[in-house]
């Protein structure tokens, strides 16, 4: 910046002034709550006597006891395992479909793309709660067209809302809701590939499939990594879909996912200290997993580049 010396008064302070609203909001609604949650996670209520009267219940330092309790909590562990299983279905299927659709949209001579692109993206505009409701009804034997067809064909009618199929049923809701957005992200990256790259491949006589596998996918790898990263975070925090299906089936407990357990402990059993410790653990686990993935992906990309 050669013009730095000519800056009039006010330029130095201007960026800070522009950032005041964001900073204030960040401090009040992000930093303070996070700090408060961490503080609470190290506290507990000490009850003296019968816990009646003033001063009988006081908040005291708890050290790591909330954390050890949370780590030994089998409900939380089972919730975490359920969500891991769920994530192992959702993330690969959703991103696989998103990549497939993006590649198809980007191929030559494909028709009806304005319609199909918008249709596949449409679920993005539908609230997760409403999506879970729509699918929830489609899973109910009484009203579902699937069961109607199965019934007419005389095929067995599985119960989609319990046991193993419940994972598929919940995963389907997330896949349905998330594929379109990720498709757009990958498709945008595909569109940014310069035309010369294709011309060269065509001159070499590469088939569309070869172009897709050898050129397109490697070139959109960064956006694939990004969509993976955000999908992992979103999946581990699943809350709305199982909560919405809960009224329709007895198989979804109030602690089905770890976040549901945090909510239950904070507002159901009123143990905000345990809930805070669990929330901190979930946040750390999420960051660990997602950044672990990012590091692994980066290392692989470097190795590939070195080859």
């Amino acid at each position: 910046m050669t013009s730095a010396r000519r800056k009039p008064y006010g330029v130095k302070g201007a960026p800070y002034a522009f950032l005041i609203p964001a900073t204030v909001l960040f401090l009040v609604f992000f930093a303070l709550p996070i700090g408060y949650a961490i503080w609470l996670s190290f506290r507990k209520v000490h009850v003296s006597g019968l816990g009646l009267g003033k001063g009988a219940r006081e908040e005291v330092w708890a050290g790591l006891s909330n954390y050890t309790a949370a780590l030994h909590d089998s409900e939380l562990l089972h919730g975490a395992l359920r969500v891991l299983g769920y994530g192992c279905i959702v993330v690969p299927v959703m991103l696989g479909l998103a990549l497939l659709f993006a590649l198809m949209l980007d191929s030559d001579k494909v028709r009806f793309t304005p319609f199909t692109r918008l249709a596949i993206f449409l679920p993005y505009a539908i609230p997760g709660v409403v999506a879970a409701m729509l699918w929830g009804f489609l899973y109910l034997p009484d009203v579902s067209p699937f069961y109607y067809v199965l019934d007419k064909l005389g095929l067995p009618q599985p119960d989609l809302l319990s046991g193993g199929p419940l994972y598929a049923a919940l995963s389907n809701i997330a896949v349905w809701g998330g594929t379109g957005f990720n498709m757009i992200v990958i498709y945008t990256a595909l569109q940014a590939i310069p035309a010369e790259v294709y011309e060269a491949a065509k001159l070499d006589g590469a088939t569309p499939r070869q172009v897709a596998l050898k050129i397109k996918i490697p070139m959109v790898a960064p956006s694939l990594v990004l969509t993976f990263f955000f999908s992992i975070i979103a999946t581990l925090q699943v809350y709305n879909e199982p909560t919405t299906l809960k009224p329709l089936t007895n198989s979804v407990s109030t602690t089905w996912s770890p976040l549901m357990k945090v909510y239950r402990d904070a507002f159901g059993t009123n143990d905000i200290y345990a809930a805070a410790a669990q929330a901190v653990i979930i946040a750390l686990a999420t960051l660990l997993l997602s950044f672990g993935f990012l590091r692994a992906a980066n290392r692989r990309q470097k190795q590939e580049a070195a080859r």
Partner: protein
Amino acid sequence: MSSLAVRKAEPAAGTTPGAAQGPPLRRRIALVPTLTLLIGALYTLLPVAWVVIASTKSGEELFSTFTFLPGSGFVDNLKDLSAYRDGVYWQWMGNSAFYAGCGALLSTVVSAFSGYALAIYRFRGRETMFNVLLAGVLMPPVILAVPQYLLLAQADLTDSYLSVLLPQILSPYGVYLARIYAQAAVPADVVEAGRMDGASEWRIFSRVALPMMVPGMVTVFLFQFVAIWNNFLLPYIMLSDDEKFPITLGLYTLLEQGANTPALYTLVITGAFLAVFPLIALFLVIQRFWSLDLLSGAVKS
């Protein structure tokens, strides 16, 4: 490409790379991609089509007729829904419009300020500030929402419109998008020229830079509108008075009550249909002059 298409393709048996081109029909429409995408569209439209049709059925028809056969009860369903608890459903719709409209507007303003500052100026702590703001994206909503509730409870603000509105104004993703757009859309010389003319920093921003950033800001607004409209966890934690519920929370409570009484199913289904409608309409109208690609932060310069 056209030079290749002139050559007649030999059948797939050929091991020559030129075998990619098929018979004449396939040259005009690529069948596999088109069909794959149509199947994808069918999958995404299926539940929407179902709810549209199911909302036209009376309670009796819902359980007796084939699901994809339209019924005759739409008007009655609408009346029942409007009559439910003195029209609380429309109150929920209005609340959602308020939360999403006001929240997204404020969010866009804050994002525009911050994105502009982070893109145009060079100052100490710029990257740190940007990274710290971005880290907010990674925070699980529950680690924020529970302490937010406890803190707002101490300020006596829970169960109010503000308790749902305020925490959603700062959007890390919005700031990120705004910074990218400002970088791409506002040339440094233009800002510099404004300074040479003696314009104040605020004037340069509001009169010169902001108009250039409009397409990007529309995207931030839409993104945040959808995010707030679809939010469930925050109002679920903050609110107990159902007059202040947004539509997501209202429908959820309706489903909770209706799950055991199939008579209420039609209300839930009609309610879900009407809740889906505004955002779909919004997208259909907007996509005429707005590209979906903008959402992923792609800027064509």
